[in-house]
């Protein structure tokens, strides 16, 4: 029974890393940062594994204590990782099918609840 659990958990965790470093929908800003050769996330595997923790920690600090820094701000995630529709020049919602957040979350079968309230595109007037 325990062995099964270990197998199951490693599959679960493994699926997070199974994703290649290439991402079709990395997002407009994120793609250009990557293309310029700069490093935003020190370790891709850490941000993949830990981003729920980071966001969770940050949300309580911001909402309850008024700490408003850029670090791990969901706004930051969205503004970097949102894609633009080439034809009408509008941003896609990051939680729509095939977009950055939902793409991965669907693959690993984890639902995400951020966007039942949070804005899914960069703020108005953001280029």
């Amino acid at each position: 029974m325990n062995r099964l659990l270990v197998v199951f958990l490693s599959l679960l965790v493994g699926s997070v890393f199974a994703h290649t470093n290439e991402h079709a929908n990395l997002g407009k800003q994120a793609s250009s940062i990557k293309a310029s050769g700069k490093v935003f996330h020190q370790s891709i595997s850490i941000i993949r594994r830990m981003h729920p923790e980071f966001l969770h920690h940050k949300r309580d600090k911001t909402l309850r204590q008024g700490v408003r820094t850029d670090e791990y701000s969901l706004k930051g995630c969205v503004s970097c990782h949102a894609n633009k529709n080439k034809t009408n020049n509008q941003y896609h919602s990051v939680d729509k099918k095939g977009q950055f957040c939902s793409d991965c979350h669907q693959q690993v079968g984890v639902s995400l609840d951020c966007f039942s309230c949070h804005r899914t595109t960069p703020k108005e007037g953001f280029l």
Partner: protein
Amino acid sequence: MNKTLNRRDFIKTTSAATIGVATVASGITLTTFASANKVPVTNEKRWGMLIDTNKLTEADIDGMVSACQQEQGWGSEVHSTGAQRPDWIKKLKVKDKATGKISNLALMCQHCEEPPCVDVCPTNASMKREDGIVLVDKHLCIGCRYCMMACPYDARSFVHETLSNQKEHMPRGKGTVEACTMCVHKVDKGEAPACVVSVNSDAVIFGDLYDASSQISQTLKTVQSTQIRADLNLNTGVRYSGI
């Protein structure tokens, strides 16, 4: 193997990277919060508001309501009926039964020191910050609406439909409760709430009630002011004069 996961280190390294990017790729996203609050708010401050109904015109109140809607993004719900639509700030006209005096006032969350909504919330979603601003933590709100039953000011609204295109600073969603936040996102940047800014006179004063030299404290010391439902001893952050 890599070294073991140490969360503190990662936060440090990643934050270093963040600052790096912020400088090299400035103007992208990350320099927007120039005067962002980096330390937790404390109870050395208590934010409050004083509304002088003798100076406040009806047009002022309409302006306050639309400034709030614009800032926070409520009021354009399509499916909700009149009584279902959010109502963070409302315009009231009250008449004294004995004297016949009529006052117009704006009513919103009164940001009580002893908020009944916080007492009744089963999940701690209804909360008061150290600096006295009462908020709903929508991450924890289960939509039970007990806070709406408990609020003496009818200040809270329930989101009755699916929303999209929310303001970046104001997450709002179906099935949760919301109310005036005293524009906490602006206050944390050192600005005044949108409704206060929209009024051109000094009919609405915003400031720190604990700072004896602030305009609001000075004014409260000299003019007659009241709290709505003062009998409940909630010690509201929003005060009124002229009613």
